């Protein structure tokens, strides 16, 4: 077995790096290649990305009253 061959479990344990870091090491290139060929890992990877996206987009509207209360507390009213 080539040392750069990876299993699904290994791909999953490297998802941290593969989502946020440079992917130029031989191991990471092998992971990318594995993702291209393994539908299960690709689906897992996509679902992790979607998880992050959900939390990124889940924001509350910051209403003007909250702004006014804040400036009042800080003594910085207009």
């Amino acid at each position: 077995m080539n040392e750069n061959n990876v299993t699904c479990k290994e791909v999953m344990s490297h998802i941290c790096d593969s989502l946020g870091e440079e992917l130029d090491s031989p191991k990471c290139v092998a992971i990318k290649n594995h993702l291209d060929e393994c539908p299960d890992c690709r689906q897992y990877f996509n679902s992790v990305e979607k998880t992050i996206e959900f939390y990124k987009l889940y924001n509350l509207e910051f209403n003007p009253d909250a702004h006014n209360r804040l400036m009042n507390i800080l003594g910085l009213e207009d």
Partner: protein
Amino acid sequence: MNEEEIIESAKTGDRKAMALLVKSYEKTIYNFAFKICRNPERAENIMQETFLSMVKSLNQFDGKSKLSTWLYRIVANHCLMEVRKNKHQFVSTDDNEDGFYENNFASDWNLEPQNILENNELKKILDDAITKLSPDYRIVFLLRDVQGLSTEETGEITELSVPAVKSRLHRARAFLRKELNEAFKR
């Protein structure tokens, strides 16, 4: 004026400069606090505490890190103090890691993230999942993945090494993904 000049003016007591700094970061800080504590009222309280700390201690800000990093640290400390009071309710992410992985992909992941604000059921699923995650892991996930800070900045704020940030991030992602996967099956 750039931010550095605004900070220097604010340090000398310029109220307009201080107000400018508050306005620049209030939405970000409010939403970051909400994402940690998942409660709009508590998020507003934490935001107010954070800016009170900023106004009081801006003279101690040495400019070696970004102002945003400094503010995130204050928010994180306030939130951690609060949520640790209820620590017993969180799932331990130190448990058997194999439990985070599952080969069952039957769940429906076709929901579009863009529609989240119109989907109260999805918002509840997201709230429920992240509130089960221990706050130490939650903050790493939110800083690194959601706020988009670097691994190094996340480590600086949480006082963790880079490998520790990566490890917590990995576990937090796997945990949240598993929670959502289970919720989407229902």
